[in-house]
């Protein structure tokens, strides 16, 4: 049974609820962990500046990590929503179209080929560069005579992603045991090393995507009717296409640089928000950002508490939880 008359939740209350859910999730994440912290300790630490031992853990370790999780999730989800609009395909995801794979290749190349010589900061920079280079290549391949064909862009992205993944595989094969450990944990995604300095480094790039992507909502709405119709409606389609790709590359590059590969959130969050409030990108993109942040904070909290004091990679947690949930949703929607 296909929903002939899609129900829509009212936009403003839904967005408010998602934001409230994010706040709640962040508080729970701050309190939960191997060292459980009482709400009163968190309160006094935050508002009265009391440096109780429990609060120091929260301030120096948990808060930057929670903030990073929220930013990374929001950036991946809003980029996912925009890419799905651009490609007119609900399956488009930063992971599917090769941007993440390019970022991963950059990071892995530094880990394996650079050894320790390039320092810790080189890995995120290489991831960032990888995302930009892959996006640029996709764009060049799909552009002829001043026109960029969206279908070709999607296919080129998938092919370049496959090549990047294969090259990453070759490098993994070459890696020694020590490099392999860094690499594996990183490839499956982790926020374990997020300090305030890391947040400061990547937050501007993540925020660029989160804040600027909604500005492209109108042309993305027009693109739902196809490129030609969007042009007829008077939207600056070529400029919007470029902007989505550049913002996507920047914020996904920063997300992969900060947290490694976290799949699924860029696919699921926009999909769920579309079911709730509909397809208008003006609300869909911010809504997806909020839900993406909630999901990532939640998954990261599970990642660091389930097998404490050890940690699971967040990418695995996200896929293990998100996958079945998404399947149930699909089956229910199709009346199976």
């Amino acid at each position: 049974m296909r929903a002939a008359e899609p129900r829509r939740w009212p936009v403003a209350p839904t967005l408010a609820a998602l934001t409230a859910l994010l706040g709640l999730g962040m508080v729970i994440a701050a309190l939960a962990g191997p060292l459980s912290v009482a709400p009163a300790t968190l309160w006094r630490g935050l508002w009265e500046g009391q440096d109780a031992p429990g609060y120091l853990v929260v301030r120096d370790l948990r808060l930057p990590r929670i903030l990073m999780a929220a930013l990374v999730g929001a950036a991946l989800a809003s980029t996912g929503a925009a890419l799905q609009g651009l490609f007119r395909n609900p399956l488009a995801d930063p992971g599917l179209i090769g941007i993440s794979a390019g970022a991963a290749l950059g990071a892995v190349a530094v880990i394996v080929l650079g050894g320790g010589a390039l320092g810790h900061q080189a890995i995120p920079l290489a991831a960032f560069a990888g995302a930009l280079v892959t996006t640029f290549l996709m764009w060049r391949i799909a552009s002829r005579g001043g026109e960029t064909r969206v279908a070709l862009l999607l296919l080129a992205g998938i092919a370049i992603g496959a090549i990047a993944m294969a090259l990453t595989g070759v490098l993994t094969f070459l890696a020694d045991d020590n490099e392999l450990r860094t690499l594996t944990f990183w490839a499956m995604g982790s926020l374990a090393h997020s300090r305030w300095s890391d947040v400061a480094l990547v937050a501007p790039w993540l925020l660029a995507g989160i804040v600027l992507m909604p500005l492209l909502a109108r042309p993305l709405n027009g693109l739902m009717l196809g490129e030609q119709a969007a042009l007829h409606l008077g939207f600056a389609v070529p400029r919007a296409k470029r902007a989505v790709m550049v913002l996507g590359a920047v914020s996904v590059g920063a997300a992969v640089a900060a947290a490694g590969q976290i799949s699924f959130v860029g696919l699921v969050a926009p999909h769920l928000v579309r079911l709730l409030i509909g397809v208008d990108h003006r609300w869909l993109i911010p809504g997806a950002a909020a839900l993406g942040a909630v999901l990532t904070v939640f998954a990261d909290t599970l990642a660091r508490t389930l097998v404490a004091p050890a940690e699971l990679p967040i990418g695995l947690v996200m896929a293990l939880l998100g996958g079945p949930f998404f399947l149930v949703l699909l089956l229910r929607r199709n009346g199976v």
Partner: protein
Amino acid sequence: MNDALLNVAGVTVRAGDRALLSEVSFQARAGERLALLGPNGAGKSTLMRALAGDLTPDAGAVTLHGRPLPDWPVAELARRRSVMMQQTPVGFPVRADEVVALGLPGRRHGNAADPLVGELLARFGVAALRARAWPSLSGGEQQRVQLARVLAQVWDSPGPRLLLLDESTSALDPARQYRVLEELAALAEQGDYLIVLVCHDLNLANAFASRVLMLDQGRLLADDVPARVLTPERLAAVYGLRSRWLTHPDGPVLHVEGALP
């Protein structure tokens, strides 16, 4: 004709060595209803794309309100001309009223609660379907929703506007086709719209159009009132059709008898 809204002057479009359009010229004013006829591959869709500003002719020019199309900023052009293409694929489970709201200009964009959305859906007899998801609509219902969207785009624009409709009623049943075209003809007659309609139904063109433009192999063969364009000789030459005009108390009727051997 100095008050021409649309001026097409010597438009030639080539694809490689082949001319898709050869020196097509005509002018039209707001209030006119043009039916663009011709066999498959005659160049109708190419001409429509040139009129919409989607392609730049290899020679000649299309001007709207005295201004060549390439000189129009896209957003401004969108207030003066609206286009319904043969197919408008919709990517997501958008509701019918949301599709129409995508056509609304400026700040009203995307507001499905705008009164104009309901008014236009009602005008084309699809008000009851406003909450339906796009994929659940039939082909004819989708066409009527798209017509409402295309009109919403220019409904409140000042001055005369150009409406380009490429086989916009092809999926409708005969009665609905006539009803929709009567609505459109009434709009044109109020003087604000110039409508150019690509069509394959000769009787429909005869009923709707104030002028018929007959294209064949990229050339404009005829441009006149329907009765003078749709002659048995021309229909035989262009389409290979056997036809004749019958006399009827209400006026002459075009009767198509079949294909020529």
